């Protein structure tokens, strides 16, 4: 059993109005010193078996196929623990 994390973020050149709205809200709440915020998605994938190379290759394929739209988003895969 292993848990694999896929982080999906809008590509840097794609406008992220949600992140901008959060960045504008933080000073109003008293949080200072925040230059910018980008919002993304985190997927926690529980594998039945170990997170070996074959399983990770599968997870990357999941990310390419469904979890991320690679036209506008980048993804990163890592094993938790």
């Amino acid at each position: 059993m292993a848990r694999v994390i896929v982080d999906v973020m809008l590509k840097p050149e794609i406008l992220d109005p949600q992140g901008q709205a959060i960045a504008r809200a933080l000073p109003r709440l008293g949080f200072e010193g925040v230059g910018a915020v980008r919002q993304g998605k985190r997927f926690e994938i529980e594998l039945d078996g170990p997170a070996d190379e074959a399983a990770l290759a599968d997870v990357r394929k999941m990310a390419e196929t469904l979890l991320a739209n690679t036209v506008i988003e980048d993804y990163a895969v890592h094993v938790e623990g």
Partner: protein
Amino acid sequence: MSGARVGVVTFPGTLDDQDAARAVRLAGAEPVPLWHADHDLKGVDAVFLPGGFSYGDYLRCGAISRFAPLMDELIPAARSGLPVLGTCNGFQILCEAHLLPGALTRNASLHYVCRDQGIRVVNNRTAWTRDFEQGQDIVLPVKHGEGRYVASDETLAELESTGRVVFRYLGGNPNGSLNDIAGITNETGTIVGLMPHPEHAVEELVGAPSTDGRAFFTSILKKLVNA
């Protein structure tokens, strides 16, 4: 002008399929209901992907619809020349299915925008726009929260240089779309996607801002009948 059969696809969460079917019927064609879970295009001559919130917009708008059983049939058929029109969520699905380039993202304002929108027809050579004049200004309803068209610089340059931008917003861009893009087409002009709603602008009786939407349906009907 009869005998043409236009499929109207219903996914779980589709909203505009009844208006779409009605618009097809008003134009003189036969609307054919297509169900997302079927592997069957029922031999239709063209397909309309209507708007709504298919699969609740889970993950990304259109991301899950793109893998519906019906899409296994529709994607290769569209690549082989079957005319397809996608409006709003239908446009999002066409982009997620890579039948059209680019993607639709959250409106720059973060507001859901619902209003009558001025639009310029900048390509009247597609299967769905030939009954418009080139450069004609029309009014259609828009209603969406994620309609900001984005694409890579290379894709955008290619769309612009090859005349594949079909519609641009006039009198204010409702969502922050790059180059005011409201709709685009594929290389052959058979697949068109746009955020505005022609199927809501076919009858004066319901208070539509115009009947400019009719020309989409008469365009495809003429193409099918003359084919």
